[in-house]
């Protein structure tokens, strides 16, 4: 008995020492990480100065390049959703065997470097496409596919799709009505996640735009650096904060939504359903 009691005691002392060691260790790691990630932001802020932020807006090309980026983001998002949503729903409902294949295909754009893809695109694109804004948007849809598909896929997996479609059909709804009024409202969080990731991608994409000779916002920042370094750094910080706001927004809305429905935790990569343990 005594031995058991003693062992229990030493065991608990050991684990409490471990907990304390863990806490110190955790703070060291997190503080180091904090310095690494915040110091560049602070330096850039110091370098640009507050006044540079005001002059960004008036700089030549700011408005037109930002407008081009926003326009591309809107077109890309519309095409992405129009293409990926019906496909993802259809595959989930009718072709579950194709899901794995689809997952493999949609991850290809992450694996294939954009700089290689644009070489091929420029080699085969017909002339009328090369001279329009549409070509870039069409390729951005390909780049956005991994994120859009994974968001939608995770959202669909969390739904009992078969039951709700059958219920909807038995009430006399057609394909489009079901998609629009039953599935879509249930996928709100997943859609939001897909949209925000797509928008963030388009607003920040530089490689394809610059090689395709478009002056989108990131390209403008770079070109502009030649004339005014401070304004460029200020614009870079602005770009970061805008992305930050976007992503914060989706996390907040998503978390609130899932708290309401009990759906699960939302992360920026996927909308993962939490395991429900114990019930």
């Amino acid at each position, binding site marked *: 008995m005594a031995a058991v009691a003693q062992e229990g005691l030493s065991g608990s002392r050991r684990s409490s020492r471990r907990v304390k060691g863990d806490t110190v260790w*955790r703070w060291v790691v997190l503080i180091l990480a904090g310095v690494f990630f915040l110091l*560049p932001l602070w330096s850039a802020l110091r370098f640009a100065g507050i006044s540079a932020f005001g002059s960004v807006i008036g700089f030549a090309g700011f408005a037109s390049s930002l407008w081009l980026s926003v326009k591309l983001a809107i077109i890309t998002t519309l095409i992405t959703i129009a293409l990926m949503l019906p496909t993802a729903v259809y595959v989930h409902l009718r072709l579950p065997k194709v899901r794995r294949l*689809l997952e493999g295909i949609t991850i290809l754009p992450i694996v294939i*470097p954009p700089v290689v893809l644009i070489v091929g695109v420029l*080699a085969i694109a017909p002339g009328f496409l090369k001279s329009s804004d549409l070509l870039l948007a069409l390729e951005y849809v390909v780049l956005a596919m991994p994120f859009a598909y994974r968001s939608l896929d995770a959202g669909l997996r969390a739904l009992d799709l078969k039951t709700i479609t059958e219920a909807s059909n038995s009430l006399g709804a057609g394909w489009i009505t079901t998609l629009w009024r039953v599935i879509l409202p249930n996928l709100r969080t997943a859609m939001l996640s897909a949209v925000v990731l797509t928008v963030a991608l388009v607003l920040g994409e530089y490689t394809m735009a610059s090689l395709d000779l478009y002056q989108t916002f990131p390209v403008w920042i770079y070109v502009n650096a030649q004339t005014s370094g401070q304004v460029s750094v200020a614009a870079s910080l602005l770009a970061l904060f805008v992305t930050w706001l976007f992503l914060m927004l989706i996390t907040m809305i998503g978390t609130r939504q899932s708290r309401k429905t009990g759906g699960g935790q939302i992360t920026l990569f996927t909308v993962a359903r939490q395991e429900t343990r114990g019930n």
Partner: protein
Amino acid sequence: MVQRDRLAVDQTVAALGSLEDPGALGSAAASPSGPRARLTVPAALRWLRRMAGVVPFGAYVTLGLLLPMVAVAVGAFQNNSGGFTLSNVNTATHGIYLHGFWQSIVLSVLASILPGIFGLLIAYAIFTAKRGNLLRQVAITASGVFANFGGVPLAFLFIATLGSGGLATQWLTDLGFNPYNHGFSLYTLAGVVVVYMYFQIPLMVLIILPALEGLRPAWREAAENVGASSFQYWRYVGGPVLFPSFLGCLLLLFGSSLSAYATAEALTNGTIPLTSIQIGSFLNGNVIAGQENVGKALGLGMVVIIAIAMLIYVALQRRAAKWLQ
């Protein structure tokens, strides 16, 4: 149990590995008569109707992804008049371009292993914080933001920090340690690795966290109850469980730094020969006449490198699976 909790990235990488024919969907959609001669006509029709729902997607992927890649692969073996030649591949695997491949590979290995380790540490620190903790929430959101940050703005951030006149450089100089006197420069390979860590570490945190969630606290308690030390726990329980996911994450980091273009270009202005930048300069028109298709051969080379990395991953994964049994 662990299998189920394992990272989605893993599954997709594995799916990619097992993907015998990436064009299967596209070609199935495009060539209706196909090889299914044994099937009766109504069955084939039914099969076709079922496949009809994925035709738009298949067509889009074929036109926007597969055809361009085929064009790159074919173009790599063509001369300017369209005839077959090996001279592009020959040029791409010699001299400055071979050097570029090596530099790219060294950079990507460094910029995947270092952020992989740091990212794992940070992820573990976040993971051990209590659920619903503010710190945890902030760290995860911040990871999402920084992982999506890159390119030109990132380069400028670091020039203002660690450039020769940057803030951190000045502080270090005041402390008597000017990194530029000790062989460091932001505009070299080492500098690029530091800058890449800015988006690679958060990416690692995001993709390894789900795997960490698979480590049950009960296992740790069980290990302690039988008298295991912390080291023993990691050596025999935690490590083996995490290892396959860790490999998968490293592969993703490798690909992400291999294909990064904007950051390196803005930072070094092409002073380091990296393959992605070399390909870009072909598109920008800085080409010697008669070598227009060398860019495509370089592109093909990058795809081959990634394919090899994936094969290594699959082999290691298999070895790890055997080791776990």
